[in-house]
């Protein structure tokens, strides 16, 4: 079975500062990893995904994430955040033929 842990439920950060949102997963098989963003009162949209290949994945809006198999992590980073990045961020894991699990979410608040 797979599971996803997002270690921080809330992350406040000042505008133009860097941010890291942490995600750890557990799985007995190879997994596929995703980060989704949910802006207020909207559905989720994909930021980036890791299926295979390079462990550093670049996504939209300047976000990137690094897959670390030994630490079973997939942390999301952005070097300089904007007010518009304020949203809920979800890490998710899936394995072929199995289900899709979302983490509990991290609320990112960018402070002017």
């Amino acid at each position: 079975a797979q599971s996803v842990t997002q270690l921080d439920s809330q992350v406040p950060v000042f505008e133009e500062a860097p941010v890291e949102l942490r995600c750890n997963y557990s799985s007995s098989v190879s997994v596929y990893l995703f980060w989704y963003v949910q802006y207020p009162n909207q559905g989720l949209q994909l930021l980036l995904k890791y299926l295979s290949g390079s462990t550093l994945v670049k996504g939209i809006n300047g976000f990137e994430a690094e897959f670390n198999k030994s630490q079973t992590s997939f942390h999301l980073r952005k070097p300089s955040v904007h007010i518009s990045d304020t949203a809920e961020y979800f890490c998710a894991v899936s394995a072929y033929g199995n289900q899709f699990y979302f983490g509990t979410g991290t609320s990112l608040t960018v402070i002017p």
Partner: protein
Amino acid sequence: DTAVSQTPKYLVTQMGNDKSIKCEQNLGHDTMYWYKQDSKKFLKIMFSYNNKELIINETVPNRFSPKSPDKAHLNLHINSLELGDSAVYFCATSAGALTYEQYFGPGTRLTVT
């Protein structure tokens, strides 16, 4: 055109009623999902359909019944609504298996009073 649409956007109803939420996609995707997001933002998959066939049926009360009349539609019918059903329900689609990106609808906020 909206890729994944849901109707209604808001639904307020009383306990014991029966209601439906509709989902339509124009992406030509084979797989559609229903998710429930509770007040703490926790997302849980409820159902998944592939080419009109049910492939994932999580442990949800049998008061919830998905219906897929065709590949472009996946509706959620809920019988005998309870207070605990209050949540935001999201429809999503993907081109295929779980390695593919999921596209989410805007959500339906259900409030049971």
